[in-house]
């Protein structure tokens, strides 16, 4: 199984600022996914990050608000830009489980925007 770490585990930020979340995997993977989980809600896919190409964003999410980097096959970052209280959520990264159509998830980053 893949081991995924995320930094920071939690943060409290002021509105108007930006936060970059890191996701590190212990093995090389082609795709990485970023999800948002708003308080008391389910997980919603933000974007799919492929190494060497632009991330693919889901409807309702844009690159200016959630820029993603994927510099190599084991690492990705998600930036939440110009934050507002509505961005308070848990942000999770995940990677596919090889050949099994499931995903391993990181521990998540709990973001609170004041």
């Amino acid at each position, binding site marked *: 199984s893949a081991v995924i770490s995320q930094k920071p585990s939690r943060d409290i930020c002021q509105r108007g600022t930006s936060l970059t979340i890191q996701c590190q995997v212990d093995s090389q993977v082609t795709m990485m996914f970023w999800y948002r989980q708003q308080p008391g809600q389910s997980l919603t896919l933000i974007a799919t990050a492929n190494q060497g190409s632009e991330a693919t964003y889901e409807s309702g999410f844009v690159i200016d608000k959630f820029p993603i980097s994927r510099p190599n096959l084991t690492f990705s970052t998600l930036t939440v830009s110009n934050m507002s209280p509505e961005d308070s959520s848990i942000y999770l990264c*995940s990677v*596919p489980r090889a050949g099994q*159509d*499931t995903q391993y998830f990181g521990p*998540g980053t709990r973001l609170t925007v004041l």
Partner: protein
Amino acid sequence: AQTVTQSQPEMSVQEAETVTLSCTYDTSESNYYLLWYKQPPSRQMILVIRQEAYKQQNATENRFSVNFQKAAKSFSLKISDSQLGDTAMYFCAFSGGATNKLIFGTGTLLAVQP
């Protein structure tokens, strides 16, 4: 587009008893997987069980089993001999098509009472 519906926002069960969580889905895909994830208060997403749509036999993992009714597009999770550590949010998820994306239901919060 795929949809996943969980109609039970909350459920409660006594320790050692059996509980069933419901999930229905809709898809036009012929090849897909259905999954149950558990999210305890630690917020780590943990895969509980998975079912390949082409398999008629219901998946079983220790105390966890599914009742997969493909024609009815129903995928329920049965937890036998419930334990206090089973207290968590349970998400039903769909995985299919070429993208490895997961589509999540809204979740069921399960409380196991001593």
